[in-house]
């Protein structure tokens, strides 16, 4: 079974994307996100600590913060 943690994605005051996994108290900056354009948002996300997650791509950038279920890669 793949782990699908609930994650809150928000923008910090410097405008960087941050990733927060409440169950694990993991608060980490996002270094890259696969789709960040006007027509798609999400895909593979990499965090500062090297871990990777997959967000089911959305059709447009969402209003942040947002709670999502993501897949740990």
């Amino acid at each position, binding site marked *: 079974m793949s782990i699908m943690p609930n994650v809150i994605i*928000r923008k910090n005051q410097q405008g960087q994307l941050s990733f927060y996994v*409440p169950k694990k*108290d993991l*608060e*980490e900056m996002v270094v890259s996100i696969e789709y960040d354009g006007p027509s798609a948002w999400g895909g593979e996300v990499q965090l500062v*600590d090297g871990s990777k997650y997959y967000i089911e791509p959305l059709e447009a950038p969402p*209003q942040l*913060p947002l*709670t999502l279920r993501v897949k740990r890669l």
Partner: protein
Amino acid sequence: MTERTRTENEALIQEVLKAYPEQTKKDRAKHLMVNDKNVDKSKKCIISNKKSQPGVTTMRGCAYAGAKGVVWGPIKDMVHISHGPVGCGAYTRAGRRNYYSGFTGVNNFVTINFTSDYQEKDIVFGGDKKLEKMIDEVEMLFPLHKGISVLSECPIGLIGDDIEAVARKKSKQINKPIVPVRCEGFRGVSQSLGHHIANDSIRDWLLSKRDEDNSFETTPYDVSILGDYNIGGDAWSSRVLLEEMGLRVVAQWSGDGSLSEMELTPKVKMNLLHCYRSMNYISRHMEEKYGIPWLEYNFFGPTKIAESLRKIASHFDSKIQEGAERVIAKYQPTMDAVIAKYRPRLQGKKVLLYVGGLRPRHTVGAYEDLGMEVVGTGYEFAHNDDYDRTMKDMKDATLIYDDASAHELDEFVKVLKPDLVGSGIKEKYGFQKMGVPFRQMHSWDYSGPYHGYDGFAIFARDMDMTINNPCWSKIPVPWKQADKSSLAATA
């Protein structure tokens, strides 16, 4: 004062661990660290929020303590029922000194212990009927209460009472909110999960109550104070500063807070968060649902207060920014006088802290303002994100400990020889008997407030009064006595 090096502190940790059996040693080693400023993520150095070791005296509380004692208990115009046997509520009643205004027993119930006092028959047959009866009695005896929270103690979860159903039914009958909180003590590893459960119950049962109601007149300067429990008046001495700089404080969570303040919080422009640990959950929720940004601040000591006021003001217009400067300038002379008086008496003194919530990192600035140095710090129930923040605030090579045991603290104190230990009531008498100056830093040792400018003056006085008290050298510590034979005689 010679600073301890990283190697010395690492050796100390190894020394302390020697007392444990193999498995415990391995586990406890993960909870002790020496601060390294080059590491930005605490999880590489310290493990936290894990079950305490059996047989080791932990200083933690239970989930009920976190939900009732910390988050729900201080809300003044609600009745908080300790649902279950009588002890949990009786032994924690009024211990946190959350100050409030109003008339106790009339429109205000913080220090009254309401309990359903479970007996054997309630455990056997279930206690839902008893809870219903109790709610009727509350309604009759205290008609001015604004709502009820039902805080489950351990047996409620074990016997499977349906407090949610009772809450829904009775809430309709009395036409006031009744919030069931599933904070049985056995949930989680410490009081920390209780904070989270309490936050979630506020989110699910209260927060959206006025979403459709726009009758509340808002201003662009509305803020709320989250995670200030008004211990000894802390929230009051914080609130005045925000108001003086031109902001309007709509709600205090939860010290001296009220039900309607909580319900109005989704209308504010910004949530100001003091205790991150106990209220970050609801802050994050309000950010997501209502788009209200939240900001962590620190009102301990003039340096951090000024920094925080400017940080808060930077999110508002120039009127507020000028207001912040005005407030800082107004209190500066008073603060200079406090520092001039106490710093010479406290300069170079070493402090060892072991507390909870925000204090192990937030009070550091206040000690530094007095020329003191924190040589060791630790939390009872912190998580990784707290240690991330702590590592930034502490000096390099400072000793950091998570869920420390009595043995560990004793040994740290013997070796680090702090001039002051700041911890809780469970640690207080042990250290005092060792002749070590001690302040109870959970509820300020019957003093306070310590937040804000007014609070700093009291903080400085209290630290001086404790450290420079002549009593400490008069305490006959058995192992410091030269004459061992007299000890043997009394043994």
